[in-house]
């Protein structure tokens, strides 16, 4: 960090003034003071040996009209606002030029150094702040996952997962935590990322690098062969409110901490030498551990099947509503391939990869219903990172018969063979509860059903400009919608009902 010399200024036309104007706003000449000798504070420290137009060797006892007093803005700081231009008129000797250049160079170098240092530190900060990326190899990805677990690094664990899975989990986690806080189930100060009461630690984990199975260009199965995983749980650390604990666990929670250690080598030995498999996926040139692919891999292993060679390519729709309609029609037609095409290629990539096998398994097991959707009117709502499609009107026909369902606020009206039946939230609550049910419980159920009827929909996501139906987001949205429909007193009423 380079600052100008104390009180000094690096004037654009005379760098040698550095330090020469200690108080910046100081006058070039002090009225009343004789200026007979060299005046360091004047004219950049150059002795005034030559003719001084404004001070011809006489004591300056009064205001000097040629002094730059008039141009000296009072209150200006020690730098910068000096009327330097005025000094040019004094006519410096030509010998001053080399010194000026040296000072100017120093000043420019200092400024460049400041800019370079600032830019360097900024780039460093940006690099540190860039989203935690995947790993260079499948083994490194799996290692980073288990290291994150081993160090209890929740943030590293979440950010280290495949991007689509990470988004899914963080969305669900934050939305659920927010609602549980509102419903006074969780304490108000709970961090959505904290897994209080549960701790995982790993030690000495080893992978069989040579045994890693490369399924295709974006999927590799790594194999964990040794190390220990320790799971500790302490229910007393769960972020539940006292009131919720009293209602849900009247006898209290068993708060005794429990610890269990799993020796991977022993487990592998027990499992006839079969290692723990962790699937890793390649996204944009980087490897990430994948929960979904790991589950699917174990499913295939159990079924003694292998991964299909080619996936079913994603083929989304132009709008969220169109995606839902296409998927519903494909499901009614038992067109499994089209159903898979309409699933998001990022978060449901595993289903696309397993697609050909799923289609083969479904052959002969499913058949078209013959139902044609003739009308599907929808409305959309934005949910966390996605778009929810809500039903307005649905019409379908089969063998000349038409069925229609219309949503009207908290009611659904179904028209079959010219006969209309209406189903409303209040009616449902009455039927569910009967006459014996307490009013507060009835109110809770009514709130729940009303909220579900009004806000349940199908969640769609946009990938590369096309819309896809997300089954996992749709399911988790049902859970969040249910929580959003309730009030804190409803939770208490429902807990009393359970008791």
């Amino acid at each position, binding site marked *: 960090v380079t600052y100008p010399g104390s009180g000094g200024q690096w004037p654009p036309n005379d760098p040698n003034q550095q330090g020469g104007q200690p108080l910046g706003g100081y006058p070039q000449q002090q009225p009343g003071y004789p200026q007979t000798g060299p005046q360091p504070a004047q004219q950049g420290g150059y002795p005034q040996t030559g003719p001084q137009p404004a001070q011809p060797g006489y004591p300056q006892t009064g205001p000097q009209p040629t002094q730059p007093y008039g141009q000296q803005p009072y209150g200006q700081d020690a730098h910068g606002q000096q009327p330097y231009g005025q000094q040019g008129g004094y006519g410096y000797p030509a010998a001053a030029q080399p010194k000026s250049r040296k000072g100017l160079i120093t000043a420019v170098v200092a*400024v460049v150094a400041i800019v370079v240092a600032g830019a360097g530190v900024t780039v460093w900060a940006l690099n540190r702040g860039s989203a935690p990326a995947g790993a260079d190899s499948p083994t490194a990805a799996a290692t980073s996952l288990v290291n994150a677990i081993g160090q209890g690094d929740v943030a590293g664990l979440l950010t280290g997962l495949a991007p689509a899975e*990470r988004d899914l989990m963080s969305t669900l986690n934050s939305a659920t935590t927010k609602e549980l806080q509102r419903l006074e189930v969780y304490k108000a100060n709970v961090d959505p990322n904290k897994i209080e009461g549960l701790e995982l630690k790993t030690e000495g984990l080893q992978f069989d690098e040579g045994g890693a199975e490369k399924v295709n260009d974006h999927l590799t199965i790594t194999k964990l062969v040794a190390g220990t995983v320790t799971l500790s749980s302490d229910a007393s650390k769960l972020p539940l409110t006292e009131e919720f604990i009293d209602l849900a666990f009247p006898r209290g929670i068993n708060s005794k901490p429990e610890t269990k250690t799993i020796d991977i080598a022993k487990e592998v030995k027990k499992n006839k030498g079969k290692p723990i498999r962790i699937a890793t996926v390649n996204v944009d040139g980087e490897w990430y551990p994948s929960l979904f692919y790991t589950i699917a891999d174990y499913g295939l292993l159990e079924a003694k099947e292998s991964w299909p060679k080619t996936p079913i390519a994603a083929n989304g729709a132009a709008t969220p509503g169109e995606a839902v309609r296409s998927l519903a029609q494909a499901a009614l037609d038992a067109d499994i391939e089209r159903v898979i095409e309409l699933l998001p290629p990022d978060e449901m990539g595993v289903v696309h990869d397993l697609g050909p096998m799923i289609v083969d398994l479904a052959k002969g097991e499913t058949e078209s219903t013959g139902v044609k959707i003739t009308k599907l009117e929808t409305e959309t709502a934005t949910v966390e990172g996605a778009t929810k499609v809500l039903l307005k009107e649905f019409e379908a026909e089969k063998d000349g018969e038409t069925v229609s369902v219309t949503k009207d606020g908290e009611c659904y009206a179904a028209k079959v063979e010219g006969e209309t039946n209406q189903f409303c939230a209040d009616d449902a609550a009455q039927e569910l509860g009967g006459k014996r049910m307490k009013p507060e419980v009835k109110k809770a159920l009514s709130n729940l059903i009303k909220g579900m009827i009004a806000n349940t929909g199908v969640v769609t996501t946009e990938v590369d400009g096309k819309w896809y139906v997300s089954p996992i987001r749709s399911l988790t949205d049902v859970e969040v919608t249910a929580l959003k429909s309730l009030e804190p007193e409803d939770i208490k009423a429902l807990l009393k009902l359970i008791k």
Partner: protein
Amino acid sequence: VTKGSTRLATTAPAVITAVGLAAVVIGMFLPWLRSGAVLRDSFQVVGVIKSLGFLRGDLLDLLLSAWFGVIPVVTITILAYAVGLSRTSATICVVLTIFTGTISGGATVERGGGEGPLGIAGTGPTVTLIGSLVALVGAVGIFVGLRVSARTIAGGES
């Protein structure tokens, strides 16, 4: 008022500001988040929050992006002072330190007692907060120093 005291009035605040700003920048690279045994600095925390998408489209999302602008603004503050625009430099510094001080102050207050696997670490926010306060005092001192200089000019050297 002597020449020396006037010089001190303009120089000392600049030094204090520089020290404060240095502490702000250093503090930003010290631990802000404790996740298990792993400590992350403020920029890594911003990266984690952004990648997890907690603040999608939120005003806080904008503030997090602005966090990366702190160092360029510190550079501009120093440059402005270096080229003689000390009043401008002090003004930028005041705005900057209010921003960094508010965020680091909030993080310092929210810092838990070290329980749980995830929490705010103390070092980074505390150093940044102290740096912000010091730089703020320095910036105010620069304004005061400018007034002293102005009075000296107006009244003549005594």
